[in-house]
Structures are given as structure tokens and as C-alpha cells.
């Protein structure tokens, strides 16, 4: 019964995939090493920094603290799946508009957290956003422009005729 490999069926960025990996494989490793989706980065090994944040069934989660096997039958969205074709997600546009990134290493995680936030919360206050950003360590920006990016993303989302985030929800919860 100590089978060291496991078969996983999951959807990644809308694409159904079946993989067989060692059981100890982390979701972050599955994404980066097996599927070549290197947009998701890994910044720590104690589940603190949130750089590896992706969506699993519509929820922001830390992919370094989830076994790939636990993502079986799940829909995973990574930074590579945020845009719709050539249309960037409101969060992507907002991060560029508000200079919400510098080195760009934590940015995929920051954006996945922000994208989850704007989909589920409409609170634009500094305090609420800063609380939500507790799941992220960024060493470059001092968070100031990330906060502004989230506020801007909320505005972009509202401006968009068909909110991109709402469309995504259907996709990932299927």
C-alpha cells in the first residue's frame, strides 16, 4: 500500500490534465516542474510568504503547502491563466498601472491573492486590504503600491462591462 506514486486528474488553467507523480510532490512542484508553469514561484519552505499562491477551486491557496495529490479533481488557476487571451485580468492591469511590483518575484502570488480578494470582497479600505495581504511577504514594494493596485483592480473590475473575475468563477468551480 505504500505506493510512492499517485495519479492525479485535475484542470489547470481550464485544461484537463492527468499526471502521475511521486506522492510527496507538492502542488507548486507539479506546476513548475511537471507542467512547466514557472510563473508560480516559491519563496519559502514554511508556508509563510505566499509567493506560491494559486487558486484551487476558486480559492487562493499556498501551493507549497498542498500535496499535488490533494489537488485531484480540482480546478487550479495560476498566473498564466489569469488573462483571457490577450485581455489582461483587472489585477494584472492594476499592478502595472500602480507600480505594484518591482522585482516581480512575489508578483504572481500577490496577484492571485489580489484576484481572489476582489472577487470575494468589495471593501476598498486600506485596513481590509492590508489584512488580506497578510498572506504575502514582499520585500520590494513596502506593500504601499500593492494596496493601491488592489484598490485600482476593484475599480477596473467595476468598470469592465462583463467582470472578468465573475466569468472566471464559473470556469473554476465547474
Amino acid at each position, binding site marked *: 500500500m505504500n505506493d510512492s506514486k499517485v495519479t492525479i486528474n485535475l484542470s489547470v488553467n481550464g485544461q484537463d490534465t492527468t499526471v502521475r507523480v511521486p506522492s510527496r510532490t507538492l502542488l507548486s512542484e507539479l506546476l513548475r516542474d511537471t507542467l512547466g508553469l514557472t510563473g508560480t514561484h516559491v519563496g519559502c519552505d*514554511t508556508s509563510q510568504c505566499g*509567493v506560491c499562491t494559486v487558486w484551487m477551486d476558486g480559492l487562493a491557496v499556498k501551493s507549497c503547502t498542498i500535496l499535488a495529490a490533494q489537488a485531484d479533481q480540482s480546478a487550479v488557476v495560476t498566473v498564466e491563466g489569469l488573462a483571457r487571451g490577450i485581455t489582461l485580468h483587472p489585477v494584472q492591469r492594476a499592478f*502595472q498601472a500602480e507600480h505594484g511590483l518591482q*522585482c516581480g*518575484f*512575489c508578483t504572481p502570488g500577490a496577484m492571485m491573492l489580489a484576484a481572489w480578494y476582489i472577487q470575494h470582497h468589495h471593501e476598498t479600505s486600506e485596513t481590509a486590504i492590508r489584512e488580506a495581504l497578510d498572506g504575502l511577504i514582499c*520585500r520590494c514594494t513596502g506593500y504601499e503600491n500593492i494596496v493601491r493596485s488592489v484598490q485600482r483592480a476593484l475599480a477596473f473590475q467595476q468598470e469592465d462591462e462583463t467582470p472578468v473575475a465573475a466569468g472566471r468563477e464559473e470556469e473554476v468551480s465547474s
Partner: protein
Amino acid sequence: MSRKLWGENVARREDIRLVQGQGQFTDDRVLPGMLYAAILRSPHAHAKIRQIDVASAQKMPGVIKVYTGSMVSGHLGTIPTAWIPPDSQLKMVPHPPLAVDRVRYVGEAVALVVAQDPYQAEEALYRILVDYEPLPAISDPVQALESSSPRLHEEAPENVALHWKVGTDTDEVFSGADVVVRQTFRQQRLIPNPMEPRSALVQYNSATGDMTAWLTTQNPHIHRFLMSGILGIPEHKLRVIAQDVGGGFGSKIACYADEVLTAFAARDLMRPVKWTESRSEHFVATTHGRDHYDEVELAGTKAGRVLAVRVKTYANMGAYLSTAGPGVPTILFGLIVNGAYDIAQASAEVYGVFTNTTPVDAYRGAGRPEATFLIERIMDVYAREIGMDPVELRRINLIKKEQFPYTNPFGIVYDSGDYHQTLDLALKTLDYASLRQEREALRRQHKYMGVGFSTYVEMCGLGPSQVAGAVGFQGGLWESATIRLHPTGKATVLTGASPHGQGEETTFGQIVADRLGIPLEDIDVVHGDTDRVSMGWGTYGSRSTAVGGGALAKAADRIVEKAKIIAAHMLEVPVGAVQYDAGQFYPEGSRERAVGIQDVTLQAHLGWNLPEGVEPGMEVSAFYDPTNFTYPFGTHVAVVSVDPDTGEVKLLRYLAVDDCGPAINPMIVEGQVHGGVVQGVGQALYEGAVYDGDGQLVSGSFMDYAMPKARFFPRLETQRTETPSPHNPLGVKGVGETGTIASTPAVVNAVMDALSSFGVVNLDMPLTPPKVWQAIQTSMAKGGPS
């Protein structure tokens, strides 16, 4: 000249790939046949290695080879230091890439495993048997000087790595002064923690002897230079590439054993090898910052005029000398301990001390935050001693506008400034008078608010190469730029700077777009590749825009110069009659006849009809060596509250007024300030590397080492004044480090202001709740607040 993009908040070009997850960080890269390396690190702070048994590790599935110190020592040079401050009696102790018979800090590399996958490499580490004989260890730099302390290196019998003195004779002033204040400060050790851990991927072609190394580095050419020597690979056969680098903060300057070993294995095995550190490794294996004990004395008058300042410092160097390590607590620190003040006499004496800790090197600001902290803190101590408002004290002593260029007591020349202007702007923005009233009102309700100032100056834009040589830096500090215009008028710009978050792909594009009249989207800025960029010294010390930008401006002017000759030929007028404006060449007074730079460039490439003596093509290089450092300055103010029940410090407001010269892209400048401020506040309130008595790093993960988080901060306020530097073609001064340099003392001064009624003059950073609470308790035991 019209300057369309100069001063505009142009959205960053690098963001286009980074927000889509299309960046290429070193660990993202995969090569066919690639192997994975893992490094076994010493669990002991100090031990003899009796024996290393790799037999069982070697037999593990997937393991290709296990290397130990004795296996590589004959084939590899030692890890060098590249900064030898003159008159410092620097002890150049050998630093082998893999320990041979002794380890001197927790995290020192002991063995290297190369395997087919990263799991196998790490599994094998658990099977290497090292027989250690633990030795007593020492982690504190002052204790390390005691005669009973363990010794690290035969070459440094007292554990003294360097002893350096600078400045004027201050004894007379001190003995005759009305007021002398003294204070000891601890500037704790910090762990840089860029979010991207270090990584190296090395490929070797045994047929041609070419090696390519993708590295997380701030200075690929320095890495090439050093690695070529250590590995014995001719420099022209070694290509170092730093594509996207996820932050550095000084920690990616040094040449580490890790990349050297990875390269060694790639050559030995003739397969690509990748090594990536984990965050846990980063905590012990990547250079640390700060770690000073400082004794500071200030002599002044009762009326608040500072007469002299004297500093004695014990700087922890760690177990070995890192690449720039010796320059940080000496040149980058001692020469500016008078800060932004007109002080006639000043001196600094520094002991660099070996301890059983991770080597210490540059960390955002590197030496200048330490110097600024001391002068800004002792100014507040002095203000309290003579009963003067710290703002008034600063106003009296700040160097005045008309004193520039100002030669400080160490002989360095501050370029330009209006220090009082930033102070006035800060006071006005904050409404300082009502802040003080609020503070008094709160105090009556037993609530404690404090306001703290830091009127800083820093020395950056490193730097004039002649000075670099004079202060023992084993390299130049000039910068290179190449502008290559393609036949269709598109531009490739090559810079020796190596940005890793600072946004120069955009700001450098803005400079070129304006000077050459080429749209920003037609310009690619290339950096971080030693095969594409001929030479450069990298990004650190707030130098890239001041020095690299200077080279770029020079190159652009040369392009215009050459294009003008061709344009004159095309327009059939003498060169002297050609006017140039934003990419358009035209005869004086006849703008309608203008030919664009794109047309001129096409003609230059076709070569069908060039003026006599003009070579075809349109590519120029320029090398810019600044004549002086630049000196950004400003006033930072922190407003804090202290909860006397828990000792918790809350940052209520933070205002940064900076002058870094003109801002090419104010949005990017502001972003640099934000990041720097938060990092500096991290030192004041949260961060601190803690070693136990055995030399074990206790704060070895994000679970224990408190990184600043978003919810710790209020909205940051920024303001700017603009005083150009006369020393470089753009007038820019640099802004990468100002926030970190200024904010630490501003916050500590604010907390001490809040605690003043408890009689607390100084507490060691980080000002954690237990420390602050304990100080209040001690005061309460003596009768409570005054």
C-alpha cells in the same frame, strides 16, 4: 530639447512579462540533461572535520557524484574578497568553497551532491556521514575580542579582521566642550531575504570550453571576473547571465561558494547542473547585513551647536570575508558619520571582527544606514540633554544651501543640496506644531505618542573609479552603455547596470526615447548578460541611474553627433548648420525639411551615399566615470504610538521628503522610497537575526524572523524636492537606498520620544513589544512617568 518622457510616470516595460508569469528567473530555466545539486551545510558553528564518509550517499538512487572539500581543493581557488581598505591591516583569510578540515559557521558548505532529480540530491545529503569534533564558538563581535574567546583563523590571532581609523583629532574639542553626550548603540544583524532565493544553473561545453552560468546576481561581470579566476576558466569562455533577478538588496553582490561549486560540477560531469537554495538555506548561507556595536560621542555647546563627533565601532564580519564585506563598515560607513551636519571635527575607528557566523556583506544602504543611524540617534540624545527640540537642533546644524559643495571632516565633497528645504516641507506637510500639541494632550491621558526625525544625507552613485582604487575596491566603478540603432530605426540599448527590480528597462528607455526621438516601444534595454554587454559593474549602491544613466546619455549624444554628419550630407548643408531636436535633423530655420533619425539610421546602414570619412552603421558605446559620488538627502518623519500595557509600537504616520535630484520616472522613484522605508522600519521594529551561545541561528525562518507585513503599516506619504547633482549629465542622485537609510533612526527617535516621559533614552533594536514593555516596567518601578 523637448523631453517628452522625462519626469513622466511611464508604466514599466518589465511589467508586461512579469504580470503574466513570463519572467525568466534562474530557477525557471530547464536544460536538457540537467542535473540537480544540493549542498550539505555544517550544523555546527565551529568544528573540526575528522572525516567525511560519502560512500552510502554515493550509492543512493539517482546520485551522480558527491564532492567533498578534499576532492575539489586542488582544482578550485578560494573565495576571494574584492575590497581591501587601505591602512586597515586586513587579514585575508582563506575561504575554501567546500570546508576541508574545519567549519566556522552554521551553513558553511561541507559537501556537494549532484543527482538526477532534486529529491534524490536532497535524500543523499541525509546519507553523508560527517564526523565533527565541535569546538567552542563565538557569535558576538565584542566578546570575540576577549582573549579567552575561541579563535577562528590562524591568520587573525585576535579575531581582528581589520582595524581602521579615519578622521581628525577630536580630543581637544571633547575635553573643552560644554556638553558631551555618549551612547552605545547596537545595530543588529539583518537577513536580506529577497523573495527569490539564490540559484545557479551552469552549462559547460567540453569541446569548445565555453561555460554559461545563469546566476541570481546583481553584477554579472563581477561574477564572471571572480569565477573565471576561481575556476580557471578564461574570461572570454565564461558567460554569466542574470535575466530576471528577484531582488537582491546587496545579498546577490557576493560571489558565493555555491555557484562556484555548481560550475565546477557542470564542468566535471559535462552536464548542466542547477542549484537553488531553499529559504532555510538562505537564512544561514546568504550574506547578512549590519551587526555593529557602536560607541558614539558628541561634543557640543549648550546652545545646540555640534562641535565634534567620535565613533568607535565593532563590526561583525562573520566567519570569512565576503566579496565587498570589508568595505562596508569602513569606507561606506566611516566617511560619512557626520551625516548632514556641518561638524568641524569627526573621527571613526572600526574593528572588523571574525565570529562563527554567516559572513556579513552589503545590505541595502551598506554602511550608510549604520552611519546615519548613529548620527541621527545621537542628535536626539543631545537634544534631550540640552532640552532643545530635535527639529530646532537639526535646523541649527544642517549644512546650509550656500555651503555647497561642502567638504566634510573626512574630505569627501557633498555635491549639492538644500537640506533645510526638505525639513521645512516635512514640518509643513505634517503640521508639526499641532502634532506636538496632540502628543502633549494624549500624554495627559496616559497615552504615548512620539514624533521622530531623520534628516539624512547619503553617499551613493558609486562611484569615481579613481576613488574606488584609492579606497581599496578591487575594480572600477564606472559604467558602460551601448546604443545600437537597427536599419529600421529600432534601438537595442545595452547597459552594464544589472537591475533586478529597480525598473531601468523603463527609465533607461525614457532617457533614450527623449534624446533620440525614438518611441519607447521601439527600444529594448538589455542587461545582465556578459556576452551581450561588453562590461559593466552592476547594480548596487544606488548607482545605476546616476552612473549607468550617465553612460547612456553620453552614448546617445554620440549617436546624435554621428547622425548629424550624415543628416547634413542628406540635407546638403554644412554640419554646423544642422539643428537637432527630438530625433529630427533640419537646416537652421527650416524645420519643414527635417529628416528623422530613422531615415538617417537607414542611410547609415545602407552606406550607399555616406559623407567622406564616415563609417557605416549606427552603434556607439560610451564609458562614463563619474567625478564624484552623489549625495541624496531628505527629511523623514515617523509618528508612533506606544501601548504601555503591551509595549506594542504602532506606526501612525510616515512621511518621507526626499531629494534625489530630478526624477526620470517619479512613480518608480516613489516605489523605491516605499520599499526602502518599509525595510528600514523592519530593522527598527521587527527584524533581527539571533544567534544562541552555540552559534546556532535561532531566527532561521519566516516563523521566527519577523519580516515587515502589509498590516504593520499606515499609508506612506512621500514628497520630493529636486536639487540636481552637478556631477553627472542627468543631474540624478540615486534613490534605491534612501528609504532604508533614513527610516530606521526616524522610527527609533519617534519611539524614544514617546517613551521620554518614562526616562528611556535608548533601547536596542528591534523595538519589540517585550523590550518596550520591560523598559516601561523598569521606569514604573522607579516611580512612573514624569
